């Protein structure tokens, strides 16, 4: 049975902007001003997190995964958590369906910090992605 430190994960939407642009997942982290470009496998993991899949489901969704895939996926997820791109989440009320399988490829991202000063966005308007007046709920709410 695979073991991952965080059984459920989510994207801290209030701290990020993320979009797939021309097939490339790009994530901007507001607090650090860093931005990230994910490879196809990393983007698949990101999409699965958005869909509520567990790390175990993600591992099963990689077809042809080698024995080290569990460790590599775990390291990748932990990197995302450590970087503030993902956070631990409570168990959902309804389990997510299994993701559509994709071929195994080492999930990776490239991190960039060359535009930190330009990208450090206004910390005042702590609103949800829907915009004002949907004020961001307190952490943990």
């Amino acid at each position, binding site marked *: 049975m695979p073991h991952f430190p965080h059984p459920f994960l989510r994207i801290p939407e209030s701290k990020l902007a993320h*979009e797939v*642009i021309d097939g*490339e997942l*790009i994530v901007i982290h*507001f607090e650090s001003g860093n931005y990230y*470009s994910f490879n196809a496998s990393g983007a698949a993991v990101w999409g699965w997190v958005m869909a509520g899949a567990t790390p175990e489901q993600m591992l099963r969704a990689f077809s042809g995964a080698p024995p080290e895939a569990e460790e590599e996926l775990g390291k990748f997820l932990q990197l995302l958590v450590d970087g503030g791109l993902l956070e631990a989440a409570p168990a959902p009320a309804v389990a997510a369906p299994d993701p559509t399988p994709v071929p195994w490829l080492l999930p990776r991202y490239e991190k960039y910090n060359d*535009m930190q000063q330009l990208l450090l966005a*206004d910390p005042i308007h702590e609103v949800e992605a829907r*915009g004002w007046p949907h004020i961001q709920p307190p952490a943990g709410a």
Partner: protein
Amino acid sequence: MKPASRSAGPFSTILDPLPAAYFREACGSWDAAEAAHGISVETHLAVAGLVFRLRFAGPGASEQLRPTLAHLEMDHRGAADWTLDCWSGPATGCPIPRPTPLMRSGIHQECLPLFSDGRFSVFHQQWLGALGLIDRQERRILACYLEDGPLPMYEEAAPFRALFNAALNTADRQIVHAASVGVPGGTVLIAGAPRSGKSTLAVQSLIHGLHYQSDDLCVLSAEEAPRTWSLYGVAKLRDDSLGFFPSSLPLRAFTEGTERKHSFQVDGAFPGHLLPEAPCKALVIPRISRQEASRLRPASGLEAMKALVPWSVSEVPAAGQSGVRIMMHALARIPAYHLDLGHDAAQAAGLLEGLARG
């Protein structure tokens, strides 16, 4: 919240949160200016699909700012989406008290955090001598100029940008640092670092028959089919690019920082060629090349993001997290290209027209 009288001060009452109290005091300054001098100009503007009621009290800024906004003026008798009240503190004798260093603590992108929250924002453009306040709930904006005398040309050419942007963000629209040209059925955003050729390409395209929205600031929406809007009806050219343009352009010289520039009103020089709104069909990143012919090459998502988002955050005060999300949303829905610029401006304009026609 109905604005209270001028006697509501000082702003730091212990009963009111600071942002609300400061906004109320600023309303008092406006009320005093209006009572003493009356409304000198009242008009309505169509700004990226929203209606702004614009009022000026007393003498001052209206003569300078109206020409830049004239193409947005509209006949409107119903309720406006926003009210923007503008006055000159010195000219009316009713200024908003100038922020102290303590009040400016933690200032970020010209926004005073001590006086801003999810509902209110205060922008202090110290370099300009302007204070802007916004109440997103009441949809009210106050713009007070704090210095005597004429406004600098860079404000005349792009007034209220932080305030317009903060209001537009509530409707999922963002002022972006990009030129925009096209045809009535579609536009192309021209993005990139300052001095990458955006203004020159936009005005060259205008001369070669395309419609024009902006040479540096326009509005972009976050929709499934993103749109762009013209915001300021002025084009600006650098001194060293004048040789590429006809001498018949009705130019006005001004200095921006240390750089000498020239501006002209687009509607006056090219009647009917200022394009109010159109679907955005593509983004291009221009680059001067040594090739004879211009050519388009696909740009990656990362390149498109780097060409548009950081510069817009930098150039548009109040382009906060909402603005970044709006731009990213739009970028995910339009193709991006590098445009290697050759010697033939007409051919480059033709490439842009092809993209705009989709």
